[in-house]
């Protein structure tokens, strides 16, 4: 059976929707989650395994964290972690039925961005 061409709402990325803080933060929550799953979690596991294996493996890990690529991945992971943490709390508040008005969504959105920037700066200041 051939599917009928029914009208669908257009995909979020494209010329149809104006970018808004709320929509961009929504997709950034997913993007940061995917990044943490694919890059962040392996970095954490690598750290655990290196500490278990011994001083040489640990030095190799520190060498990578000090390298150009390592610094970029570490910095991106800290940004993703901070953002996903604070925006996740924003989502949990929504799930409880609170702060669903448009004004609250924007206020909480800016608070999340500020808190993420501060935590990322602290972590990068300490780690890099």
């Amino acid at each position, binding site marked *: 059976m051939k599917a009928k061409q029914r009208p669908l709402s257009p995909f979020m990325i494209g010329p149809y929707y104006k970018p808004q803080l709320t929509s961009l933060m929504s997709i950034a929550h*997913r993007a940061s*989650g*995917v990044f*943490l*799953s694919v890059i962040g*979690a*392996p970095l*954490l*596991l690598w750290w*655990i*395994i290196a*500490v*278990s294996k*011994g*001083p040489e493996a*640990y*030095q190799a890990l520190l060498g990578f964290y000090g390298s150009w690529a390592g610094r970029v991945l570490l910095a991106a992971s800290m940004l993703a*972690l901070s953002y996903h*943490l604070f925006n*996740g*709390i924003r*989502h*949990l508040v929504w*799930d409880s039925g609170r702060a669903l008005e448009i004004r609250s969504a924007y206020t909480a959105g800016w608070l999340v961005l500020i808190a993420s920037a501060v*935590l990322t700066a*602290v*972590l990068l200041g*300490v*780690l890099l």
Partner: protein
Amino acid sequence: MSMSNPLARARGMGSAKGGVQHWLAQRVTAVFLIFLVAWLVYAMIVLSGADFATARAFIASPVNAALLIVLVIALLYHAMLGLQVVIEDYVHHPATEITLQLLVRAGAFLGMALGVVYILKIALGA
């Protein structure tokens, strides 16, 4: 006017299956992870620039080892549920989707097992 009750009319009409359990598990792990990630941030600050012996002693402490095990399991379970939904939403080719879903599950469970084994090795001094 229909003589059937609302539940009878709703049954069989929609896609609702086991979504509530998934939704809830995503949020329960999220709540745990707020506290566990706060602890991880503390650990990263304490251990930044630490030498091997210091890092090992930190993980070897029973409370830290236990927290790290719970963190790894909660984190990878939360990641698995999240990636599953992202794949469901954006990957529409059935064979690719099933392959990715299996890879996500395998990766998450393997990561949990590896994390627990290596943390226990450190904690037990093996």
